[in-house]
């Protein structure tokens, strides 16, 4: 198996994630799409890690774990914000949250 396949998978996931961020109107789904993007990066890291596995270097693995931890924290904060927005506004549709319009 070539490393290319994993990079392609990563790219595909990344594109799906970006698509979700741009198109989805539901805040929770946008957060989920961001998770996809983060995980596509993880796949890349792991693929490269395996490519150089013989050198005994595990940085890619460790970095991926690090990203997973950060992603968990990010989702925690993100969902908390969505929850608060929902409590105050009774909606999580992003279209209704355009107070920042210049």
């Amino acid at each position: 198996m070539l490393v290319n396949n994993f990079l392609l998978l990563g790219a595909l996931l990344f594109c799906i994630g970006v698509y979700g961020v741009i198109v989805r109107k539901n805040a929770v789904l946008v957060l989920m799409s961001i998770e996809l993007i983060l995980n596509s990066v993880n796949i890349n890291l792991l693929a490269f890690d395996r490519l150089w596995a013989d050198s005994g270097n595990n940085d890619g693995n460790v970095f991926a774990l690090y990203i997973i931890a950060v992603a968990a924290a990010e989702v925690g904060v993100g969902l908390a914000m969505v929850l608060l927005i929902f409590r105050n506004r009774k909606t999580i549709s992003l279209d209704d949250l355009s107070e920042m319009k210049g």
Partner: protein
Amino acid sequence: MLFASETEHEAVAQASGWFLDHAWLIPLIPAIAFFLIIMFGKKLPRGGSEIGIASMLASLVISAGTAYQWIDLVGKTEHAEAVTHSTTWFEIGSLKVGIGSRIDGLAMMMLILVAFISTLVQIYSTEYVRGDRRYTHFFGSLTLFSAGMLTMVLAPNMVQLILGWEIMGLCSFLLIGHWWEERANSEAALKAFWTVRVGDMGLLVGTGILLALFGTLDIGEINAKAAEFTGDHKLLALGAVALFIACIGKSGQFPLHTWLPDAMAGPTPVSSLLHSSTMVVAGVFLVARLYPVFHTGLDINLAGHHFNLIAVIGGITVLIAAGLAFVQNDIKKVLAYSTVSQLGYMMMGLGVGAWMPAVFHIFTHAFFKCCLFLCAGSVAHTGSHHSFDMKKDMGGLRKKMPITFLTWMISTAALCGVPFFSGFFSKDEIIDSAKGNDYKVFFVVGLIGAFMTTAYMTRATYLTFFGKARGGAAHFVNEHEDHSHEPAHDEGHDSDDHHAPVVHGKPLVFAPDDSPWQITVPLIILGALALVAGYLNAAAKPFETDYFHRWLHSSIGVEIPEAPHFEWMNAVPSIALVAAGFIVSLLICKAVFGEGNSPLKGLTQRNAILGGVHKFLVNKYYLDALYEKVIVRGIAHPISAAAYWTNQHILDGIVNAVGKGGKRTGEMVYKYIDQGLVDGVVNGSGTTATHAGGALQPVQSGKVNLYGALLFGAAAVGALVLVLVNS
């Protein structure tokens, strides 16, 4: 070759048989079924329930085949080793983490149990939650829940065990909060999830300690090394305690038992599955699975030791949960506390070195407790207008619901430990072993527990099936006896009206006699098993069977004392106490809830001491208050107070000082530089900025999606530039 998936067929010289080699299919089928249900369930004629039931049946068939071949294997070879198959899942550095299956007696027993009960519960659910708005999701979660338990039971290593454990945690959250529109339900789901999570920390820490001690995550190797452990005993004890904390959380042991009764907020089939064979027995299973770790680490069966952590926690749980079961009005809560109490028995059994009786109690308890919950569901579904309140909406149902009544009585007898019913053979063995292994205190605890069990079950049975029909039950009973009768229920049912009456927004089901077949058939099967399951390991005189022992004893993994020989004479005290519990409770029930005038009526209101005890029990020993008001606030409040103080005094001080300094500097700058030099420049740039801002204004749309698109567009341009520059 990147990512070579290598299969390690470990030393399984004598292992053979298709089912033993393909046991990994057992959790995989329901896991796949979960995705199928979620994706296609809504389009199917039966809303996905057919996929769930089919997958559970397939798991059941494979489990049965596995069990058959394992029993065959045990019959052929004297010391049957566990059959392990494992594939590398991932590796970090030199540590390879596998995923696969480990079949031995314990796993075999649990597989059969989980697959069997899940199948029955799903059949039952097709009627019980019919027409529910999240019917498909319900079956999806139910199926994934079973898959999680099966994954855990099969686990050859700790990581897979944690995986299954956490899947169950998630699904219990989803299922308990199935009707999340009501706030109480979603709070109960959160409570269950977080309480169990407190314990889960222990699981991770304990697994880490085991890895540090033994350098492996493989359960077989851990057990073998722990059995003849000579190293740092303190560290092993610490690991065992950490793992046991996980079991306390999951199995609802004192002091983390508070989530279990609240979990009754979920639909009844969920409670039934949760409380019989999955989720709550996971903790007991973990102790049984890693028994050498606990046995060595916590000094179980060591000469001169009359107490250990597991036995003490189990013993406390038996008594306090049984005490709480007396003051519940909700039939499901009685059963919930009963489960907590019975889990206490299992833990106590493991704590006194009675591995076999404790595991056997998991087996028998699953059938009769599942049956009791399903009976309660049947009563609520058909007899009492979806109410679980025994005092308000039940009573006198025995004649109208003969099948439910009969199966309830059999299961109750089994739960109480009435001789010749299944619970007797397992529970009495635990009590007997506590005496035989020189744990006198726990022998007494077991006996008192048996007395209390009988007493509270008698109370629940009396309130539900005997006496005068009240509320919803009266409505149900009178509905069919006499149509011209004045409706006893105040919801205003008109007997001329042929439309189905509606209570609490749900149409009532008026079966002519008992619940529909989807409900009664599982009840009959489980009732029959509650009657006979005990004979697999009946040590009592005329039977003297030991199949269960023969199939499972290789799973213990450590030397434990022989179970004492069963004598009917030794069982006399517990039988006498069961009888006493029944009689005392019946008399009190008749006096308190019966029709006659009795001085006992309203005694808790009149007598200060009894009232105090009653209030103490109703408030669940104030443990919830302790957790929420004292511990959570005690930790959270000082932190926020300290943060506020820091904010007010330190940060504000700095900010104010900086601000004052800034103000003075600003005044100087304003006077000399700003007015003269800068203004000209500012005005010029201001005009420029106004024009640029006007041009860029559409970009600031306030739409998050557009910002995201701009971000990624900019990143893409940046990447393109990078590629062009570097190439």
